[in-house]
């Protein structure tokens, strides 16, 4: 029956639509996923026989060093604004012994062009982790927080609560201070509304 035929075609069309090739927005999370993939490789010990503690330790050391460097960078940035001290440098103080020597440590770590050993490499990956962490913007990061891939980031930030602030500092260089977009005098500005769609 032709009616049957038509019905079949309609269902086929429906399923074809449901399985249509990917649309761009459906792949919007690709970079974040790849970054997480990279981070997972960095934090995971490549050789399974390697003692776990060792790799964790090296990650922590590296993360602390980066945190110290990040703290200095933030402090330097904050130095432009007198008195307006931000909270971010504090994480370095929270991460144990290194805190008091953070200035000197940072000096040491500021020679970045060393060989790519474990201590030097996490710096770019922290930025990547930040991008991955904040890519879900606006929603709760509860699960992300539990993800071991972010443990280095959380350690570096000095606690899960401080990750957003830490990341905005770390990623802030290019975006300027994107905290409070309250530019009062930009009258001729075109449609640069900083608000992002919440849904």
């Amino acid at each position: 029956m032709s009616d049957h035929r038509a019905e079949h075609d309609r269902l086929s069309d429906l399923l074809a639509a449901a399985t249509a090739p990917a649309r761009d927005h459906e792949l919007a999370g690709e970079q974040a996923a790849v970054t997480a993939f990279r981070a997972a490789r960095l934090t995971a010990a490549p050789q399974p026989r390697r003692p776990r503690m060792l790799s964790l330790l090296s990650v922590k050391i590296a993360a602390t060093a980066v945190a110290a460097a990040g703290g200095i960078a933030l402090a330097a940035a904050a130095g432009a604004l007198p008195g307006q001290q931000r909270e971010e440098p504090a994480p370095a103080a929270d991460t144990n012994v290194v805190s008091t020597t953070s200035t000197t440590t940072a000096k040491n770590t500021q020679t970045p062009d060393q060989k790519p050993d474990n201590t030097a490499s996490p710096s770019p990956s922290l930025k990547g982790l930040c991008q991955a962490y904040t890519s879900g913007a606006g929603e709760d990061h509860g699960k992300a927080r539990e993800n071991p891939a972010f443990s280095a980031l959380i350690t570096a930030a000095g606690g899960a609560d401080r990750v957003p602030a830490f990341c905005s500092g770390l990623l802030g260089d290019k975006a300027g201070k994107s905290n409070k977009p309250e530019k009062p005098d930009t009258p001729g500005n075109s449609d640069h509304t900083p608000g992002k769609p919440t849904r």
Partner: protein
Amino acid sequence: MRSGDEVLAAARLGDEDAFRTLYRDVQPKLLRYLQVLVGADAEDVASDAWLQMARDLATFRGDLDGFRGWATTIARNRAMDHLRRQQRRPLVPVEDVAERASLEDTAQAALDSVSTDAALSLIARLPPDQAEAVLLRTVVGLDAKSAAKVLGKRPGAVRTAAHRGLRTLAAQLDAAALPARTPSE
């Protein structure tokens, strides 16, 4: 050109391009499935799922079909976690309750636009077990056995649910296509 299984093997060893290939293959499928499960939060749930996959891929064992099933299971678990946190039941988007009556409109929209979203909206109207079975079999592309594993059911039950779901969809599209022949209820 690498085969799917070669890509998977490379990704497990840390090859980023291979991982990208897997992402592009699986993500749209997962996202559409999640769209029906959790609605507007699908992208967030998918991100969570990919974080877990990125972390655990090295420990995954199996072929590409197995990977798709594994990825779907992770996505579904994250979706269920998400719904639990929000104290919602799956497949019952809030707005749908108010719009129960517009099933025919949904079918009509699916028929007219033949867009992916319209198609998913109509599938989402099916009873939950049928909707999930249809999605896993057709959109995600799992075989009955893999789909059954994801859902924790028997393959026969999944086959039946998918079949019923497809039949229902066909009937709804039929009704929408022939408005003269409106259903009696």
